[in-house]
C-alpha cells in the first residue's frame, strides 16, 4: 500500500514533496501513467493544482472503489470535472477585493497545525494566492476555512457516504501556502501526507 503523488506538471516535483518522497512516504506517478489498478491499490492519493482532470475523471469507478476501501484523497485546485458523485464545479468569487479574499478558520484541522488562516490570506501585502473561490461543499462535508464575507468553504473535509475521505483545497497547492515564519512548506507537506495515510485523524463525521 502506498500514497500516490500524482505528478501532473512537467519538471521536478514540488520542493515540499521532496522530503516525503525521499522517506518513501509518497510514490510519484505521472498522471498520464495513472491506472485504475494503481488507484484501487493505493492507500491514499495527493493531487496538485495541475491535475489532468479529464484523465482523472476517466477513473471514476476506480476512484469510487478506492474511497469505498477507505482511501483518502488530498485534492488541490478548482474542480471542473467532478470525479466522484456529490462533487460540484468550482465557483469563482464574483468580487475579488481585499475583503472578499480574507480567510477564516471555520473548524480546526490537524493539517493546518497552528497556522493562522489570516497569515495565509496575504503575501507581501497581496491577497488572492490562497484561492479566489470555492468548490461547493458536498452533503455531509465539514467546512474548514471560509473565504470572504460569506465565508464560502475554500477548504473542506468530507467523509464519503460509502467510505473514504477527501480533503479539498480550492486554490494553489496547499503546502505552498505556508506563511513565512511558520513551520514552513516542508512541515505542512508532511502533515498533508500524514493525513492522506490516515495518520492524522479527520474531523468530518
Amino acid at each position: 500500500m502506498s500514497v500516490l503523488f500524482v505528478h501532473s506538471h512537467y519538471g521536478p516535483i514540488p520542493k515540499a514533496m521532496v522530503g516525503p518522497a525521499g522517506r518513501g512516504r509518497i510514490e510519484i506517478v505521472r498522471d498520464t501513467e495513472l491506472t485504475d489498478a494503481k488507484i484501487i491499490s493505493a492507500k491514499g492519493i495527493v493531487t496538485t493544482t495541475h491535475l489532468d482532470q479529464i484523465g482523472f475523471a476517466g477513473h471514476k469507478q476506480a476512484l469510487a472503489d478506492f474511497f469505498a476501501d477507505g482511501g483518502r484523497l488530498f485534492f488541490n485546485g478548482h474542480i471542473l470535472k467532478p470525479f466522484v458523485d456529490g462533487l460540484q464545479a468550482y465557483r469563482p468569487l464574483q468580487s475579488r477585493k481585499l475583503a472578499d479574499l480574507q480567510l477564516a478558520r471555520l473548524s480546526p484541522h490537524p493539517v493546518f497545525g497552528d497556522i493562522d488562516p489570516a497569515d495565509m490570506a496575504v503575501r507581501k501585502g497581496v491577497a488572492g494566492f490562497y484561492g479566489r473561490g470555492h468548490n461547493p461543499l458536498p452533503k455531509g462535508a465539514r467546512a474548514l476555512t471560509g473565504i470572504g464575507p460569506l465565508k464560502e468553504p475554500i477548504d473542506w473535509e468530507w467523509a464519503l457516504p460509502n467510505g473514504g475521505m477527501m480533503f479539498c483545497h480550492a486554490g494553489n497547492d496547499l503546502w505552498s501556502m505556508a506563511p513565512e515564519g511558520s513551520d514552513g512548506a516542508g512541515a505542512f507537506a508532511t502533515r498533508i501526507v500524514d493525513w492522506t495515510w490516515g495518520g492524522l485523524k479527520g474531523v468530518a463525521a
Partner: protein
Amino acid sequence: MSILAIHPGAYYHIETLEGARYQGMFDALVRPEELGDVDLAAFDAILVPCRTPADRMTPHKAKLAAFLDAGGTVIATGESESQLWLPGISFSSQDTNFWWWLTPGADLGVRIAKPEHPLFQRLEQRDLTWHLHGWFEAPEGAEVLAVNGAGKPILYIDEVTTGGQMILTTLDPFYHHGSHFMPATTRFLDGFLPWIRETFAATAVESA
C-alpha cells in the same frame, strides 16, 4: 479550415478552452495523447496553451514539424517548454518577479516592438504586462512583436524556420485567465484569440 486547440485537461485549460468566454474561438479540442490520430490537414492552425506538459507533446514533434512544413501554423504560449517539441526555438527562463508592481512607478519593461502590426489594433502594452518567465532569441528574419526590458523577444512570429509559421510567446495568459487571476491576461486573450481567429480561420467571431 479551422483552429485545433490542444487540451491537456488542467482546470485552467478547462476554464479557458471550454468556458463560455472563449469556446467559440476553437473549432476542435484534442487531448495531447490523441494528436497522433488527428488528420491535421483539416486545420489551419494548432494552438498549444500555457503549461501543456512538454512530455505530452514531444511524441508529436515530427508530426508538428510536418504540419509546419506543409504550410500550417502552430501557436504556443508560455511555460510549455515549446523548444522541446517545435523546431528552431531558443528559450531562456528567468526567475519570475510577481511583485514588481508593488513598487510605485515600477516598470516590468515589456514593450510592443511593432506597433503597426494588426495584433496591436486589439492589444495595448498594458495587456501584455503581468510578469515574465523568460525570453527567446528569435531567428534572423522573424517578426518580433514584443520584447522585455532588455530588448529580448517575448512574442514573435517565425516564418523562416519552417514552411509554415510559428507564433510564440513566453507569456502565460491561459493559466492565469483560467485561474481567475490577473485581469491583464484576460485582456490579452480578448485581443489575441480574435486576432488568431481572424487571421487563421475562415469564420471570424468576436469574443464574448
